[in-house]
C-alpha cells in the first residue's frame, strides 16, 4: 500500500487501518524483535567467524614471519618490511599483557564471588559470606577503624573491572586477528615480488579508503567506554542481590540468577502488581502524550499558517517562548500553580467551587500530567508541522477544491494524512521518548500520589521514574536494572512495530 491508496481512504478507515495495523503488528513485531536479536547475534558471530576464518590455514601456509606473529604480534609485519605497523602490533601486545597481569586477571578470577569476603567457616544459605576482616582496635580510644581502604574488596569495582577487562580483551583479540591477517597479506605481496605498502602510505589510507575508521574510531571508543561498558555492567547487576541491604563497600552483593526477574513478573505479589500497573499506565501515557501533542500541534500549525491570518511570526514566537524556557522551570512552576492550595485553586475556590486535587488524586493527576504535557509539547509539534505544511504540493489542494472539497475535507483528506505519513518516524521517536519521559512526571507529580499497593512508586510513575526512584530512594539497584532491561525491550518492540508500518524502514533497506 502506498501513500495514494492510503490517501484515498476516508478518515474513519484510516484511523481504523492504523489501529488495526498497530495491533496486528504486535505479534509480528515481537517475533521480529527476537528475529532481530537473532540477526544481530548472527551478524556478530559471522563477524567473529570471519575473524577465525583462515586462522588455521594462514598459519599452515604462512612463512616463518607469519607463524611468528601468531605468538609475537607484529613479527610478521616487521619481517616483511612493514616496521612501523609491526611495532604498533607489538606495543599493543605488550600493553595488553601488562594490563592483564597487573590488573585484569585479578578481576576475571574474582567475578564468581563478586567480592564476598571468603571465609569457609561462615556459610549462610549456602552462600559464602563474611564480615570485613580489617577492623582494628585502638588501645587508647577503642576506635574501630578501617585501616586500609584500598585492600577492601568492593563488588562494584570487581564487576565493573571485570566488564572492562572483557571489553579490552575482545578489542585486543580483534587486533590480534588483524595482526595475523596483515602478516599473511604482506607475505603474499612479498611473494609476488612487490613491496608491501609503507607505513606512511597506509596511514594516508585512513583519510580515503579507510576514512570511515578515522571518522568512527573516536565516537566508537567514547561509546564503548561511557555507554556500552556501563550498560553491560548494569545488565549484570540485574542478576545480583545489589539492594539496600547489600551495598558496597559496607556490604557485598553476589549472584542470585533470575530471582529479580521472577520478583518483577510473578513471585513477589507486590512488586509484580506494581510493575503491571506501571506498565499499563506507561503505555497509556505514551500513547496519549504522543497523539494529543501530534494532533493539536498540527491544528495549531494550521491555524497559524491559515492564509489570511496576520502576524504569523508573532503567534509562532509566543508559543516558541514557552518551549524555550527550560523544562524543569516551567514544570516546577506548573506544579506550584496547580498545588492544592496554589493560585489556580484559589481562583477556583474564589468562584465558589471546591478545589480540584490536580496532583493529589490518582485520576486527576494522570489527566493533569497529560494536559500539562500538551502545554509543554504542542509548540514543538507546531514548529515542525509548520515546516512540513509548506512542503505540501499546492496542486493537491487545487484539485481537491475543484472536486468541491471544503476546508475540513481538505484537512482530513490531504493535510493530516500527508503529515502523518511523513512524520511517522518522528512519531516513533516521540513515542519512545515519551515512554522515557522523565521530566514531566518527576517534576510535576514526582510519581505521586502513592497508594499502599504500589512498591516504591505512585499512580503517575512511569517505568523510568520508577527506575529512578528504585535507584535513588530505595537503593534497589538490582530491580532498577531489571526495569531498565524491560524498558529497553518495550522500546525495541514498539519501534519495530511502527517501523514495520512505515515506509521509512524499507527506504533504509533499499538505500543500503
Amino acid at each position, binding site marked *: 500500500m502506498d501513500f495514494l491508496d492510503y490517501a484515498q481512504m476516508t478518515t474513519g478507515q484510516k484511523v481504523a487501518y492504523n489501529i488495526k495495523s498497530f495491533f496486528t503488528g504486535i505479534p509480528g513485531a515481537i517475533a521480529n524483535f527476537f528475529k532481530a536479536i537473532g540477526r544481530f547475534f548472527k551478524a556478530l558471530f559471522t563477524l567473529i567467524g570471519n575473524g577465525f576464518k583462515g586462522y588455521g590455514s594462514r598459519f599452515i601456509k604462512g612463512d616463518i614471519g607469519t607463524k611468528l606473529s601468531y605468538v609475537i604480534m607484529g613479527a610478521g609485519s616487521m619481517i616483511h618490511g612493514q616496521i612501523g605497523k609491526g611495532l604498533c602490533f607489538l606495543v599493543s601486545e605488550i600493553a595488553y599483557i601488562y594490563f592483564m597481569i597487573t590488573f585484569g586477571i585479578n578481576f576475571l578470577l574474582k567475578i564468581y564471588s563478586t567480592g564476598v569476603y571468603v571465609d569457609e*567457616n*561462615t556459610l*549462610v544459605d549456602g552462600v559464602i*559470606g*563474611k*564480615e*570485613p576482616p580489617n*577492623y582494628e*582496635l*585502638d*588501645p*587508647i*580510644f*577503642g*576506635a*574501630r*577503624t*578501617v585501616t586500609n*581502604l584500598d585492600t577492601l574488596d568492593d563488588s562494584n569495582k570487581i564487576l565493573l573491572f571485570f566488564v572492562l577487562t572483557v571489553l579490552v580483551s575482545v578489542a585486543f583479540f580483534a587486533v590480534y586477528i588483524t595482526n595475523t591477517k596483515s602478516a599473511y597479506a604482506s607475505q603474499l605481496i612479498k611473494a609476488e615480488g612487490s613491496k608491501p605498502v609503507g607505513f606512511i602510505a597506509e596511514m594516508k589510507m585512513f583519510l580515503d579508503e579507510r576514512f570511515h575508521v578515522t571518522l568512527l574510531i573516536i565516537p566508537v571508543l567514547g561509546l564503548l567506554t561511557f555507554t556500552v561498558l556501563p550498560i553491560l555492567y548494569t545488565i549484570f547487576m540485574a542478576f545480583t542481590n545489589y539492594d*539496600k*541491604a547489600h*551495598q558496597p*563497600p*559496607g*556490604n557485598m552483593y553476589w549472584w542470585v540468577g533470575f530471582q529479580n526477574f521472577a520478583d518483577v513478573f510473578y513471585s*513477589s*505479589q*507486590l512488586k509484580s502488581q506494581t510493575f503491571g500497573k506501571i506498565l499499563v499506565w506507561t503505555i497509556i501515557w505514551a500513547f496519549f502524550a504522543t497523539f494529543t501533542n501530534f494532533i493539536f500541534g498540527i491544528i495549531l500549525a494550521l491555524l497559524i499558517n491559515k492564509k489570511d491570518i496576520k502576524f504569523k511570526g508573532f503567534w509562532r514566537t509566543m508559543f516558541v517562548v514557552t518551549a524555550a524556557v527550560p523544562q524543569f522551570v516551567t514544570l516546577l512552576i506548573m*506544579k*506550584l500553580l496547580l*498545588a*492544592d*492550595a*496554589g493560585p489556580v485553586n484559589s481562583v477556583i475556590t474564589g468562584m465558589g467551587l*471546591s*478545589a480540584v*486535587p490536580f*496532583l*493529589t*488524586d490518582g485520576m486527576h493527576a494522570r489527566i493533569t500530567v497529560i494536559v500539562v504535557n500538551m502545554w509543554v509539547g504542542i509548540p514543538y509539534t507546531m514548529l515542525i508541522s509548520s515546516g512540513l505544511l509548506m512542503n505540501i504540493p499546492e496542486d493537491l489542494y487545487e484539485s481537491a477544491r475543484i472536486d468541491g472539497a471544503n476546508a475540513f475535507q481538505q484537512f482530513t483528506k490531504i493535510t493530516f494524512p500527508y503529515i502523518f505519513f511523513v512524520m511517522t518516524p518522528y512519531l516513533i521517536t516521540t513515542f519512545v521518548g515519551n515512554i522515557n519521559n522523565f521530566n514531566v512526571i518527576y517534576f510535576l*507529580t514526582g510519581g*505521586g*500520589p*502513592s*497508594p*499502599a*499497593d*504500589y*512498591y*516504591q512508586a*505512585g499512580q503517575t510513575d512511569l517505568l523510568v521514574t520508577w527506575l529512578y526512584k528504585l535507584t*535513588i*530512594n*530505595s*537503593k534497589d539497584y538490582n530491580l532498577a536494572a531489571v526495569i531498565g532491561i524491560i524498558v529497553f525491550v518495550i522500546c525495541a518492540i514498539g519501534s519495530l512495530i511502527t517501523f514495520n508500518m512505515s515506509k521509512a524502514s524499507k527506504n533504509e533497506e533499499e538505500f543500503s
Partner: protein
Amino acid sequence: MVTKTKRVLAVILTGMMAATALAGCTQTTKTESGSGTGTASTASTADGGESKSEGDGGSGSTVDVYSDEMTANIKAKMKEEAAANGGTIELKVWCASADLKFEKTLIEEFKELYKSDDGSYEFKIRSSGAIGEPDAGGKIVESPKDGADVFNFADDQLSTLVEAKAIAPVIELFNSNVKANNTKETVDACTIDGTAYAFPKTSDNGYFLYYDKRVFKDDSAVASLDDMIKTAKDAGKNVYFNLGNAWYNAAFYFSAGVTIKYENGKQTTTFNTDEGLNAAKAMCHVAENAGAGFTGSDGGSGDNTAVEKGFNDGTLAAAVIGTWEGPAIKKAIGEENVGAAKLPTALIGDKQVQLESFGGYKLIGVNQFTKFPVTSQALAYYLGNTQSQLKRYAERGLIPTSNEALSDTKVQADPAKKAIEDQTPFSHGQGSSVSGKYWSTNVGGFGGEIVTKKGAFTDDQLKDSLAKIQEQIDT
C-alpha cells in the same frame, strides 16, 4: 580448687572491667558488623551476649575529654593521622545550609583548640550545606567514600546508616561523656542494639502543636483534635496536620497501639490488625473535615511552605509542626499570639486518646570510611558538646539535648521547649522504631489518599491497604 577457680574468675572479671573502661564497645561493634549481614556464626553470637553486658558496664566512669592529658593524647593521634596524609587533616563536614555559617564558627574554634603544638599538622576543613540533614544519610550510604567525614543528620536515618556499615561507632572515650552529659532519651536515639553510633545535637526534630492564641484561648481549647477542628471551622480557619506524610501520620498508628519497632536489624510492625484499622479509621474521621476546619496535605509544596503560607494568609489557626517553623509563624502572626503545646487527643476506636509522635533528634555522625577516624570523632564531639549546643540555641533557636544546656534559663523559658517536654512521654525514638524502609513505603501515600478522598473508605479497603503496607515493610 573451688577457691582457686573463684580467684581466677575474679581476676578475669576485673581485667574485663578494666578493659571495658578503656576499650568499651570494641567487642560489640565487631559483632554488629557480623549480624548486620546476617552472617554471624554461633561463636560470634556468643561473643555478642557477653560484650553487651560489658558495654553497659562501661558507662559508669568518664574521662574528661578536654583535660590536658586527653587533649595531648588526641593531638598525638591527630598527628599520626595527618602524617599518613602528608601532614594535613582534610575533613569535609555536611550540615543544613541554613546552619552553615554558624557551624563554621564552631569549626574554627575546634581548629584553634586542637592546633598542632609543633606545627606538624594543619587542618583543612571544608563545610558544605549542599547535602542537608534530611538527605545526608542517604547520600553517605550511596557512596561512603565520597561522603563527608562528619555529617549532621536526622535520627530516622541512623538505622539505614548502620545497616550499610557507613557510620562509625562512637569511640568509647567520647561515648562515655555523651552518655553522662545528655538526656537518656537522646542517648537512646543514638544507640542501636547497645552500640552508640552518633553524637546528639538537638532535640527538636519532633513535632508538636503551634497555635494561634487569638483562635484558641487557652490550653484546654487545644486538648482535643475534634474540638480544635470545630473551633477553627467556626473561625473560618483550618488545623494543619499532614496526614500524607509517614512521619506525622505515625501519630495515629502509635496512639492506636500499632507496634512499629526496629530491633536487632529487624523491623516489626502490626499495621494489619484491628489497631491499624482503628488508626486508619481515626484518620478518615479527621479527614472528613478536609477543607472545612482541617488541612491534611501540604498540596505538594512541602510542609514548611504550606504552614508559612497558611499563617501568612490567615487560613491556618494551628499546625502540627516543629521548631524550625517557629520563627516563620512568629513573624506571620506576631510573637505574642503564638502558642505551643503537646499534640491534642484524637478519637481512636471510641475513646479520646493522646496522640503520640516521633520524638526526633538531630545527630552528628562520623563516616566509617574516613581517613581520620579520631579527628573526625573529636570534631563531632566538639560540635555536639554542651557549650556548642548553647551557642546553637542562641544563634539558631534549636533546642539542646544536654542536661546542662537544657537547664539554662533562656532555654527553660522557651514555649516550644515546654511543648516538646510535654510531648516527650508520648514520643518514640525513630532509630528504635523504624528502618529506612518505613520511609520509602507508602505509609505517607496512603494517608494522602485518605485526605484526598476525605476519608470515604470502607473497612475492607482500609484493611486491604494496611495489609499491603505491612507486606512492604516486612519484606
